[in-house]
C-alpha cells in the first residue's frame, strides 16, 4: 500500500509533471474564468428567478425547468434542432466525401479546384448568410430569377417566406458552408492511406467501389468519427445562418434551440428560461460527444 501511494505521488509530482503543471496553469486559469464560471452561472440562473440583467433573485428549484419543459413549443424546437443537425451532418458528410474523392484524383487544375472549394468555409458565416439572403430574395434574387429564365421552375417558392422552404433554405446554407471542412478533412485522411494498398488491390483486380469501401473508408474511419462529431456540435449551434436568414420565422418554423436561447435571453430578457434551454443544449451535445468518444476509444483499443 505504502509503495503504491509512493508510486502514485511520484507519478503526480515528478519534475516532468511539475513542468506540465506550470505550462498548463495559464490555460487552466483562462478556462476557469471564461468557460467554467459562465457554465456554473448558467446552472444557477436555471435554478433561480432572475431579473432583466440576469442577476439571481430568488431560488426557484426546478420551477424554471417545469415551466420550459411543459411547453409544446420547446419540444417542437428541440425536435427541429435534432432534425436540423442530423440532416445537416449526414448531407455534409456525403457531399464532403464525394468532393474529397474527386479532389484526390490526379488531374490538371486540381490545386485550383481545392482552393475554390475552401471559399465557403473561409468566408465569414454572417457574410455568407447575408449573400444567400439576397440570393433567395423573391424580387431581386439570383436563385428564383435563374430558375424562371431557364425554365427549370416557372413558379418557384418564396424560399424564406414559407415554413418548409425556409427550413430547407437555411439548411442548405449551413450545408454549403460546412461541406468544405468535411471535404478537406476527408481528403487529408485519404492522402495518409498508403499507395501500396491501392496498388496491391489493383493487381488483385478490385474495382473502384471495392477500393473505396474496403480500403478508403476503413482507412479514414477515425477521421470520419472526429469530423462528424465536430460537425454535429457546430451544426447544432449554428446560430448565424438561421438568425440572419429568417430570425426563426416564419411562425418560428426555423427556430432551433440556439436561436430560442438567444431570443429568450437577449430579446425578451428571460434569462432563467434561456438558461434552461441552454442546459438542454449542453446535455444533448454532451451525450453526442460521449457516444462518439465511446465509439472512438472502443475502436482504438480493438
Amino acid at each position, binding site marked *: 500500500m505504502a509503495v503504491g501511494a509512493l508510486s502514485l505521488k511520484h507519478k503526480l509530482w515528478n519534475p516532468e509533471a511539475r513542468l506540465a503543471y506550470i505550462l498548463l496553469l495559464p490555460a487552466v486559469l483562462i478556462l476557469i474564468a471564461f468557460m467554467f464560471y459562465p457554465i456554473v452561472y448558467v446552472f444557477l440562473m436555471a435554478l433561480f428567478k432572475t*431579473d432583466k440583467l440576469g442577476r439571481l433573485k430568488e431560488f426557484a428549484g426546478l420551477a424554471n425547468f417545469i415551466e420550459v419543459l411543459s411547453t409544446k413549443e420547446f419540444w417542437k424546437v428541440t425536435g427541429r434542432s435534432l432534425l436540423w443537425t442530423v440532416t445537416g451532418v449526414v448531407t455534409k458528410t456525403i457531399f464532403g466525401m464525394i468532393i474529397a474523392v474527386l479532389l484526390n484524383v490526379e488531374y490538371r487544375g486540381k490545386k485550383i479546384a481545392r482552393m475554390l472549394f475552401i471559399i465557403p468555409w473561409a468566408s465569414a458565416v454572417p457574410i455568407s448568410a447575408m449573400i444567400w439572403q439576397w440570393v*433567395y430574395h423573391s424580387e431581386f434574387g439570383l436563385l428564383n430569377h435563374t430558375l424562371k429564365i431557364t425554365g427549370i421552375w416557372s413558379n418557384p417558392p418564396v424560399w*424564406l*417566406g414559407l415554413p418548409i422552404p425556409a427550413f430547407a433554405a437555411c439548411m442548405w446554407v449551413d450545408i454549403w458552408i460546412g461541406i468544405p471542412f468535411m471535404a478537406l478533412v476527408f481528403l487529408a485522411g485519404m492522402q495518409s492511406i498508403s499507395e501500396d494498398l491501392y496498388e496491391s488491390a489493383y493487381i488483385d483486380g478490385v474495382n473502384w467501389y471495392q477500393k473505396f469501401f474496403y480500403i478508403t473508408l476503413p482507412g479514414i474511419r477515425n477521421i470520419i468519427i472526429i469530423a462528424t462529431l465536430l460537425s454535429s456540435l457546430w451544426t447544432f449551434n449554428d446560430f448565424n445562418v438561421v438568425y440572419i436568414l429568417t*430570425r426563426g420565422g416564419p*411562425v418560428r418554423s426555423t427556430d432551433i434551440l440556439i436561436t430560442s436561447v438567444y431570443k429568450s435571453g*437577449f430579446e425578451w430578457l428571460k434569462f432563467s428560461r434561456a438558461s434552461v434551454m441552454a442546459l438542454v443544449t449542453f446535455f444533448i451535445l454532451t451525450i453526442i460527444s460521449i457516444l462518439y468518444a465511446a465509439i472512438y476509444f472502443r475502436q482504438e483499443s480493438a
Partner: protein
Amino acid sequence: MKKVLIIVIAVVVVVAIALILFFTLRPKEVEKPKVTFYWATYDGLTEEFRASLQDAFNAAHDDMEVDIVPVPWRGLHDKLTTALAGGKPPEISVIGTRWLLEFMEMDAVEEVTQYLSKSTVDNIAPGAMEAKIKGKLMGLPVAAGARIMAMNTDLTTKVPKTMEELREEAIRVRNSTDAYGIIMPGKKYTELTDFAYYLFAAGGYFFKIEPDGSYGKCTVNSEAGVKALTFMNKLANEDKVVQEGYIALDRVESHPIFYAGKAAYVMIGAWVESAMEGAKSTFKTKYAQIPGFAGHESTSLIITDSICIFKDAKNKEAAGKFLDFFYKDEWKAKFDELVGFPPVTISASKLPQFQSPLYKALGEAALNAKGWPLMDGFAEYTEIIWDALQEAHLRRMSSKDALDEAASKIDKLRGM
C-alpha cells in the same frame, strides 16, 4: 529535466518582471474621458455624417473624446442589454422610446436633463418629450415622426380617402401595369409597423387603455384587429397587389421595390426622400395620409426615439457636453434632414428645409397619431403578434383565430 524546469521558471520570472517594470515605469498619459455613443443606423443616415460629427467634436475638445459606434437597429436592443448585463454600458445610446420602461426597471438610466445645458433642454419641442416619465425627462428625443403614405405618381395620382379606395386603386395599378399596387412587409422586423397602420386605420389599438391610463387586456383580436388583418390578407393573397414573396421580406428588403419604381403606394416614414435619393429613384412622388377604413378617421403611427444616459457609465458629464454639441442646429438639423424626421428642436423646425410638402404631410399625420404602448415586455408580445399575422398570411389559421390565440397568450404572460 530539472534544468529545463529551472530555465522555464527563470524565463517566466524575467518576462513577468519586465512586464511589471514596463507598465509601472512608462510615462503615464492622462486619459481623456471617453464618451461611447451607440448610434442607430437610421435609413438615410450616412457614414460620412457620423464620422464628421465625431471628428468635429473631438477636434473642438482637447479634454474629452467621443466614439460614435454605428449599430444597426435590428441589433441595437440586444447589444444594449448585453452591455448592461455585462456591467459595461455605453455613456449614451439611441433607443426606441418604447424600451425605456424596461431600462428604468433595470435601474439602468438616469434623468438626462441633469447633464445637459439649459439652452439644449429649452430648445426641445414639448410635444416630442414622450420620454418624460413622472415629470423627469429620461430620454432626450432624437427622432419623432409619424408615418405617411408615399405614392409613385408615374403609376397613380389618386389620393385614396379610405382603405377601400386604396385597395381599388392598388388593384387597378396591378392589373394595368407590371408594378405592384402597394408594398407590404410580411417578415418579422423589430416592430409591427405595418399591422399598426391597418389596425389604427380601423380604429383599434394593441391594448385596452384603462381610465387611469394603464394598459388593460390585449385587444389585437378586437373587431378592428380582425378587420385589419383580414384586409391585409385580402390585399396579399386574394387581390395579389403586394410585392411577390411579401412574407419573406421585411421593411429593409421590401421598400427598395418602391424606390425602384415598381410599386404605386408605400406606407413609410420620413426617411423616404433620402432613401430614394440613395437609391437614385427617377420617378416623382406625392405624399398623403394613411387613410382610415370607411367610417374611421386617418390615424397614423408615431414613433419616437430617444437618447439615454446610462447610470453605470463613467463619463456622463462629458456625454452631456457631447449632446449639447450635437443638438446645435449645425449638426442636429443635418441629422434630421438625412433621416428625414421632422426636427425635435424648436430652432431647427423653423429652417427652410423643413417646410417642404413631405414635412407638411408629416406634421399633419402627427396631429392624430398613436404611439407604441410604453410597456415592459412589449418585445415578446410583438413576436407573438407577428406569429399570429404570419399564421393568417400562410392561411394556416383564420385572422380571428390567430389574433384570439395571440391575445390570449399575451394576457397570460401579463398575468391577466
